[in-house]
């Protein structure tokens, strides 16, 4: 049974990991926790739904369409709102992300209503693979694989491409990066676009497990945020490990300890992390120079 719980936890944990990763990328680049992350993914998933179910086109087109939409949405958000903020401080920018989240939520309700819908995926939710008594659905396998593929691609991008290195440079020292001719604003736009794509992937993977509706990302986003804090907020591997760990802990806790407190265990973990290791599992202790 424990093995089963760990595998189920890993599946939902992959979703948390993707959202944690998406939030950490932006946090590293701008110190903003982007609370619109979930609903940006949600609306991209609706685009996939439109292409797949309403127009009846094949899955790869829906997937590509949603990803292209996510890139544009990420860029636009940064370009239209974040960059426009005059004399921005972190608090103002957080409020901008919350405002954008409300805007997207309202738009979705207006355009699609809040009926629950089904996003059909090519991976079955109930066909299962049985490995030594532990079962996992094809969808579960796809979810875990997606999170791993994203990780590998992101690692490759950040350490092996010029653009990725430029991103890291901006994250580490914006002023020095600018002096060296790296366009800081554009790099930030790219960070938003990448995290928007990762959020959209998470949205597309969770919609078949739950249902497609405007509220579907609220709970996963909160968990993703908790996972990011658990991982250290500034560490990408930390965010991923945080996501997997949270999914597993939640599931074990729900089964063996208390279902009533299953959904708050994430926040108990945050409290513990902040008390004992404020920098998170893999984060570097952050000291602001004054």
């Amino acid at each position, binding site marked *: 049974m424990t093995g089963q719980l760990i595998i*189920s936890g890993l599946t939902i944990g992959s979703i948390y990991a993707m959202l944690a990763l998406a939030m950490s990328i932006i946090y590293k680049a701008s110190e903003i926790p982007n609370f619109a992350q979930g609903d940006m993914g949600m609306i991209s998933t609706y685009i996939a739904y439109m292409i797949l179910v309403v127009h009846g086109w094949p899955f790869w087109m829906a997937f590509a369409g949603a990803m292209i939409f996510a890139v544009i949405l990420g860029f636009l958000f940064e370009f239209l709102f974040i960059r426009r903020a005059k004399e921005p401080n972190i608090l103002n920018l957080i409020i901008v992300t919350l405002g954008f989240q409300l805007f997207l939520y309202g738009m979705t309700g207006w355009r699609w209503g809040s009926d629950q819908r089904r996003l059909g995926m090519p991976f079955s939710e109930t066909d299962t693979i049985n490995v030594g008594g532990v079962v996992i659905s094809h969808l579960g396998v796809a979810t875990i694989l997606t999170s791993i593929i994203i990780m590998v691609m992101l690692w490759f991008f950040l350490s092996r491409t010029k653009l990725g290195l430029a991103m890291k440079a901006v994250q580490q020292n914006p002023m020095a990066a600018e002096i060296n001719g790296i366009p800081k604003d554009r790099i930030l736009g790219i960070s938003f676009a990448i995290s928007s794509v990762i959020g959209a992937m998470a949205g597309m993977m969770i919609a078949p497990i739950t249902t497609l509706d405007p509220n579907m990302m609220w709970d996963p986003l909160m968990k993703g945020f908790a996972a990011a804090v658990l991982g250290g907020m500034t560490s990408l591997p930390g965010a991923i490990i945080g996501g997997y760990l949270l999914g597993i802990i939640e599931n074990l806790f729900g089964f063996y300890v208390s279902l009533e407190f299953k959904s708050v265990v994430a926040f108990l973990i945050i409290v513990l992390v902040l008390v004992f290791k404020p920098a998170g599992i893999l984060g570097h202790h952050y000291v602001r120079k004054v």
Partner: protein
Amino acid sequence: MMKYLNRIVPVLFIAAFTLFIACERGGDATGVTEDEIVIGSWGPLTGPGALWGNILRGMDAYFDMVNEEGGIHGRNVRFVYRDDGYEPPRTVSAVRQMVQNDNVFAFVGGIGTAPSMAVKDYIIENNIPWVGPLTGSTHFAYPPQENIFALFPLYAREGAVHAEYALDELGAERIAIIYQNDDYGRGGLIGAEMILEERGMDFVERLSVEITDSDLSSHAARLRQSGADMVMMWLLPRQAAIIMGNTAVLGYNPTWMASSALGDMGLMIDITEGRWEGVLFSMFGEMPYSDHEQMQAYRAAFEKKYPDLRWGLFASSGFVFAEVLVEGLERAGRDLTRQSLIEAMETFEGWQGVGAEVTFAPGVRQGSSSLYLVKAKGGLDYEILTDFMDSDIDIDEAIRRLR
């Protein structure tokens, strides 16, 4: 002098305004004119509960139908409904607006326990007749209020009916329950629990779900481990779809028995990828897809008014509740006042439209609490398993356990 004037003028103004409002309201025939009766309602047209918005649209289509057929004693119904997004503070302002600006004569429906609780006292204070709040919570008819006529089956009674059927007809031996941790889910839990206790039994597993939960895999594992042959489900459609998916992954297929809140077959079949087939659930009115003549007429009326919307349980519920109010207005006659409507409602004795039989009397404000069970058979096919049933559990005891 000027100094005082600055203070006196606003105070006088406010006093005059208050007096004006006070005179404006009251008056037993508010909302009734020579050729019109104003009826109000509210519910979520936006936000997480918006799928229930079709209840309001069903009522809207119904009143149109009534008007087309000549109205009620020479008067047409003007139906006013407002969106509260299922947020109680917004319900309060919506209802105040309807009372103060639209001068509604009576309310019908009103969706959800929490929003309805937020306006209950206000509607009682103003003694506005209110027929059929859409909630099976006990707060509206226990203790009875002069002006509130409850129609929705009590959740506790529904839970009890389920348990009796599961034990007596299906011979279930190991029953588990998964319920939403609020008035709705706990109502069902307590009703069923009281029946099990009578038989010296208990649930083999009871699992609570929070409304925000999106992963129920540990719930599924607990259910499988309990070895229950029957699982009662008191959830919202979203969580019902999640738990049925999660248990299917584990290869665990018990008999599911669901509350009437999960009775929209079209929706449930779709979001559970067809796993809804075989589920037993309760209904408090004719099936929306039934060939019952009146229901067919309602369906036509709805599809005429809202050709783009899906006909299903929620739209048809609008008709089920509103037709009781219209029958009351018919009985009250041409000299319509709030008092005469209340007296007319008290004459209901086993009256039946497309819902269950309705009976009110002085001091009796729960008009019906019967349900029947249906088995989903794939697509929109279904099999009706029982006639209307009721349970005689002790409601006072149920209320005591709920508090």
